[in-house]
């Protein structure tokens, strides 16, 4: 089995969010970048488990500049056989999807795994777009993935429940919480990661369909209004008369 896990870079969950260049650029100064948690905790670890249990060949795929290598090495320290980085500073979800699809189009694989979304742009789009470009079956938000008799059996999250799905390889799946548990790389893994191949491939030209106009920050809350815990009639009054939500 050939498994490809796509990993992306995102600012740390607790990173300060600020913008420069008249609110058109994310201010990266002092920001710690991490592997997108949905990619790392769920897609990547499930890929590693398939490598261990099913003897899958596991490749990590990233679209980004050389500064992303630190994140790719972390992935290789958790598992995988090799990694590929498509060398570009991605402009949009569409750009990332086109880069991944053009790399994959002449490769053989059974499964491409993504995290369900990134924690910076929250788009949930890249996996779906790759499936659209390559005309492959796509299942999103899978919280469980098993391999049985040549098929993948998935739990897909739906509002208030789950769908159980069977899909044949090759396919594209996005992973949600529940698919696997986070792993911390150990010293042996970190040493081994240094000798695993990391191939850098050139990017293809893509067209811009969508461009960023500007960022903005939400209006700050005016501050919490504290209510006496003995006087819940007052809270009810505020919710009704002031906030008008009940």
């Amino acid at each position, binding site marked *: 089995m050939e498994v490809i896990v796509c990993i992306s870079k995102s*600012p740390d*969950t607790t990173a300060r969010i600020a*913008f420069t260049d008249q609110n058109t650029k994310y201010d990266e100064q002092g920001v710690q970048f991490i592997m997108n*948690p*949905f990619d790392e905790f769920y897609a990547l670890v499930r890929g590693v488990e398939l490598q261990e249990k099913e003897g899958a060949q596991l490749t990590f795929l990233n679209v980004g500049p050389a500064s992303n290598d630190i994140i790719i090495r972390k992935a290789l320290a958790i598992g995988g056989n090799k990694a590929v980085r498509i060398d570009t500073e991605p402009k949009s979800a*569409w750009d990332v*999807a086109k880069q991944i699809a053009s790399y994959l189009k002449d490769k053989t694989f059974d499964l491409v795994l993504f995290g369900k979304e990134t*924690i*910076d742009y*929250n*788009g*949930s789009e890249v996996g*779906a*777009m*790759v*499936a*659209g*470009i390559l005309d492959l*079956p*796509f299942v*999103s*938000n899978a919280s469980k993935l098993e391999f049985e008799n040549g098929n993948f059996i998935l739990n897909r*999250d*739906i*509002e*208030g*429940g*789950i*769908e*159980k*799905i*069977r*899909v*044949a390889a090759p396919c594209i799946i996005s992973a*949600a*919480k529940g698919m696997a548990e986070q792993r911390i790389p150990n010293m042996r893994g970190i040493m081994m990661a240094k000798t695993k191949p990391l191939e850098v491939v050139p990017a293809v030209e893509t067209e811009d*369909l*969508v*461009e*960023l*106009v*500007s*960022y*903005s*920050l*939400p209006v700050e*809350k005016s501050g*919490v*209004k*504290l*209510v006496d*815990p003995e006087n*819940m*009639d007052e*809270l*009810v009054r505020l*919710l009704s008369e002031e*906030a008008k*939500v*009940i």
Partner: protein
Amino acid sequence: MNILVFADHINGQFKKTAFESVSYASRVAKSNNGICTAVVLGKMNDPAKLSGFGANKILEVPYDGKFSSNVYSSVLMELANRENAELVVVSHDLNGKSIAGLLAAKWGAGSVTGVVSMPEFHNDGMDVVKGVFSAKAYARYRIKSAKKVISVMPNAFPPEEVGGDANIESVNISIPADRIEVLSVERAEGKVPLPEADIVVSGGRGLKGPENWHLLEDLATTIGGVLACSRPVADVDWRPHNEHVGQTGIVIRPKLYIAVGISGAIQHLAGVNNSKVIVVINKDPEAPFYKAADYGVVGDLFEVVPRLNEALKKYLK
């Protein structure tokens, strides 16, 4: 500008997000002298309902399969072409999310997902705003391609009843062969899905154990709210995984979010920060959640929650 909008349903009943999407699409169509065409796949109890939310035309696609993002996106693309639509609108719920990117890629459209604004039109494109950095900022994007796809955030645009008498047409379309098979569907029946709830009552570790959840159940029943929980509570199985709101769980934007015994870690806030009004009940005055709250009650939840429940009963009577 003609608009195609996908109206999703569960076993023949429209989702609330279907009305929201149709209402949104019809407002955009109206201000651009276009036609708003709603698409329904499968058997619906009452497709005409959509005309009440402003659809000018309703297309019924005969389909007896289950949800498939590949099939649905192919059907929407074919119908968008037939109707000369420039924009396709879906909801940013779990089905819509898995359709949007596929449809955009197949159709060659520019797309923005999780939209929280009405579109603004410019010479070189259409602007929409979406939340980014897990609810900590917004980004305005311009879609410059002729074909456009957007998914609209649930609970961001209340459906507006405008009345109307749209034609319902059954369309003749060949359904592409599907490569996924839905083996079974498990869904809690009769429950409002969390992303659609107007009022959410949520509990954290402060409740000390699942046996105390009756306090929140009572409060939710009184106020007509839906139950949710923080991640640690779902992780130790006090409550089911599908009640977990937060960054890795479900992202919600209700009118009222009542957080009981939840400290308000940044990952939790990422899932609830867009609630219109947040009430925090916690015994720790230093809980970070108070910074994001509109109203706070510093006190013992085991006393405060029953007291609030009684006060609400009195008010709602």
